[in-house]
């Protein structure tokens, strides 16, 4: 093990190298570029004996990964924002063909207006594609989760593609000390990919196929069941990772100071770090507040949220994207998860930090205080620059 001071982007690159990927296929987009530039260096120097396919679009990047994966290769790509949206058709394809592609996504706002800054709208709009989604909070977590994502995606009980996201610039271009596991440690954790459900030369087999109404639902149900199994498989994999590296990032919904909390804020990505500091400060003032981080959005941690809901009175959900015509996606999904729960805390949604606007400690504190003292509005946009109060 060595420690390097690297960006979230390089954390992705190092993870792909340590995973000994066979095929990388990628197209440049700000702020993802450093990921694939570093991989290109690894490949060019021979440090990573992979094929790097320099494609002419993100759509082709994902198709090349899917096709390589269909033959049994371990594949990786990375993208952001518009590039991810261009891939959309093929994200469905990767899940439908059960090809365990792993992808790094730098969360960036969607145009227009053009914005290169962070926002979760790009990945949130891919939540129905059948991909496992991890949201990273630190560069270390990004590296570790990417390595775990390979093993999870390829697990025989899962066989689904997985994306590991990081907030643009807050992680992608910010350096932090990151422990890089040794290749021997990673090899012990992540064996070569098993060749199951892959094409075999010389055999009559068609992957993809077409079906009438008699089979399509069953194939979709298989994906649904695999996503359900993903939860337990991931917990086992993270335990195993912790045995080898000593690091465990806390499963699907890591919590902070929730044991005696009556009010909890649900966060995603780097806003979590800010909110953790606010929780500490507010606890010093005597407020029993806590934090829960949506580390996975798919599978959605329904069970973990219901457990949490039995202990608290108020839950706020901080969304870094918005579903037009409804509310923040995390908010609506938390609400959906808790509807069938025995205990219903007061639930409110806060939309903040779109297009890279800072989610400041003051902003989080304001939201938590508001949550502590008011029952509404159900969904609000935080610190909107407006003459009238936003809601």
């Amino acid at each position, binding site marked *: 093990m060595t420690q390097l001071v690297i960006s979230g982007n390089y954390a992705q690159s190092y993870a792909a190298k340590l995973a000994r990927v*066979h*095929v990388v296929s990628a197209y440049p987009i700000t702020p993802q570029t450093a990921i694939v530039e570093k991989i290109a260096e690894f490949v060019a120097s021979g440090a990573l004996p*992979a094929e790097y396919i320099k494609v002419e679009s993100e759509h*082709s990047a994902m*198709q*090349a990964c899917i096709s390589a994966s269909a033959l049994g*290769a371990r594949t990786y790509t990375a993208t952001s924002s518009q590039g991810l949206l261009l891939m959309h058709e093929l994200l469905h394809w990767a899940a439908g063909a059960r090809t365990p592609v792993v992808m790094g996504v730098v969360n960036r706002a969607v145009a227009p207006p053009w914005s290169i800054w962070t926002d979760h709208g790009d990945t949130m709009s891919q939540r129905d594609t059948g991909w496992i989604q991890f949201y990273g909070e630190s560069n270390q977590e990004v590296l570790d989760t990417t390595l775990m994502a390979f093993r999870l995606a390829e697990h025989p009980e899962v066989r689904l593609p997985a994306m590991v996201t990081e907030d643009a610039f807050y992680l992608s271009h910010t350096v932090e000390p990151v422990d890089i596991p040794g290749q021997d440690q990673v090899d012990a954790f992540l064996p070569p990919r098993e060749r199951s459900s892959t094409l*075999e030369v010389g055999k009559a087999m068609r992957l993809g*196929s077409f079906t009438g109404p008699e089979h399509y639902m069953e194939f979709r149900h298989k994906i649904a069941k695999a996503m359900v199994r993903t939860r337990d498989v991931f917990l086992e994999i993270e335990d195993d990772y912790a045995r080898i590296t000593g690091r465990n990032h806390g499963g699907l919904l890591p919590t902070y100071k929730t044991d005696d909390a009556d009010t909890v804020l649900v966060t995603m990505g780097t806003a979590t770090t800010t909110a953790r500091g606010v929780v500490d400060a507010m606890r010093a003032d005597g407020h029993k507040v806590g934090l829960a981080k949506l580390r996975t959005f798919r599978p959605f941690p329904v069970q973990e949220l219901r457990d949490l809901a039995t202990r608290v009175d108020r839950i706020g959900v901080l969304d870094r994207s918005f579903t037009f015509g409804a509310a923040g996606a995390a908010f609506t999904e938390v609400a959906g998860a808790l509807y069938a729960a025995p205990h219903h805390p007061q639930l409110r949604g806060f939309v903040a930090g779109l297009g890279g606007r800072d989610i400041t400690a003051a902003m989080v504190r304001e939201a938590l205080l508001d949550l502590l003292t008011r029952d509404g509005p159900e969904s609000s946009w935080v610190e909107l620059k407006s003459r009238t109060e936003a809601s």
Partner: protein
Amino acid sequence: MARLTIPAQELMRSGHSACPGCGATLVMRYLLKGLGERTIVTVPACCWTVIATPFPTTALDVPMLDCAFEATGASISGLRAAADQLGLKDVTIVGFAGDGGTADIGLQALSGMLERRTDGIYLMYDNEAYMNTGVQRSGATPEGAWTTTTPVDEFSRGKLEPKKDIMAIIAAHNPPYAATVNVAFPEDFVKKVEKAKAIHGPRFFHALAPCPPGWRYSSEKTIEVARLATDTNVFPLYEIVDGVYHITRKLGVAKPVREYLQTQGRFSHLDDAEVAKIQAQVDARWKRLLALEGLA
């Protein structure tokens, strides 16, 4: 028994779902005869998505990977990279796509595959319209042809624009090998495939695939229509090897284009002036092809 003039091995099975007399089916049959069993085929949305039969059956004795409509070139690149990484270097990767999937929606990925010198074969089977969706015009539909989106009635006369010259687009990428093939000439077809198989780098085939329902002729005429396409110079047979053109079938005097056009209902509305215009275009293209051959 007489000697067979093309390989006996069949890697395309019976029981497939093609229409009777389907040209695209013969294209697949001849292609696989030339490539053999160490082949992986990737197919986007096209007639062959259906011809290959629904789950759980498959019409090919080699692996077939469905890919997205516009992504065949990328799928070839992905399969090639994986094959090389997994120690399957002897395997031939071939993309098999229709004219819409190639010359229209898939042009970008095809261009990418050619430019990055992927070691694989791309075959466009050209039935000159979106046949799987019911005969809508594509960029490869010839001028004057009726399709469901280029109707023939008192206000319109079929497709107004000329056919996209896919071979010129391919040639601009300077691949080591490109050729036209036609189901009416299976010996020429298989010979070119065998030749291409031995070459490394991006290779391209433009295969004429007559379509009885789409071109509006009776199913038994597929070979006759295809033969006339070449013998009237509408669809010349040639190769481009490292930039050098070579015409592989030349008649002393080509037949009049009218003989080809009149075999198909899609051209039946054309008047003498329109036929003459098409004849002039065919003559000009042939002259240009001869000139290109002369550059060698």
